[in-house]
């Protein structure tokens, strides 16, 4: 149950290997992970994307990520979770975020990992500014991200 917010790069391989080792010691059978990278272009034949800068709200970011992580633990029987999210200027190909979830069975691990990503996309206070040939622009939030995050909320009875 670890949350880190940092400007520095992280070593996905080493982080995932250590996470998996803890999962094995806890008797888990399933480890799902997700790494988000700065894309090289927008769509297979789309325009090249430049570097981006991630602004965030120090203090609130950690608080929201911990709240999101606690939600995931309430919903699924997890033996461990890890969220690492970077901020600052990131070149194409750079790592932005790593999310890991471990559980007895694969369904819980997959679902918790997807849930953590969907929720942090819409609830963690990060904003992306892209460098484009036409100048810098703030990335607009996607309605589809909101819809995916809402899909996890159980319907009210």
């Amino acid at each position: 149950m670890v949350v880190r917010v940092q400007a520095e790069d992280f070593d996905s391989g080493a982080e995932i290997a250590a996470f998996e080792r803890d999962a094995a010691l806890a008797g888990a059978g399933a480890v799902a992970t997700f790494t988000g990278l700065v894309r090289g272009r927008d769509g297979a034949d789309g325009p090249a994307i430049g570097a981006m800068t991630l602004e965030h709200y120090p203090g609130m970011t950690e608080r929201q990520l911990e709240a999101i992580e606690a939600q995931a633990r309430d919903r699924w029987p997890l033996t461990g979770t890890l969220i690492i999210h970077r901020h600052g200027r990131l070149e194409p190909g750079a790592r932005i975020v790593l999310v890991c979830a471990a559980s007895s069975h694969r369904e819980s691990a997959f679902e918790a990992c997807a849930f953590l990503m969907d929720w942090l996309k819409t609830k963690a206070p990060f904003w992306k500014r892209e460098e484009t040939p036409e100048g810098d622009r703030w990335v607009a939030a996607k309605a589809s991200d909101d819809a995916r995050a809402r899909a996890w909320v159980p319907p009210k009875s």
Partner: protein
Amino acid sequence: MKVLYFAWVREKVGLDIEEVSPPDTVLTVGDLAAWLSTRSPGHKDGLSDLSRLRAAVDQDLAQPDSPVTGVAEVAFFPPMTGG
């Protein structure tokens, strides 16, 4: 009360943080945005369309009708784009 601005809201307002003392008539996040909008053209530009904004009160996500009386920190920003 501390007010923080992020992303394009920060750029339009021209400040990342300011200390303000709103009058007693400012009860909600919506009231506060309206009151702050009168402080400068930049504030007006950044804060007058609440539908494009998100807000946090004491670092928790808030709604336009969330109370701000007695809180330490309010933030205004665009919808988030992390991950």
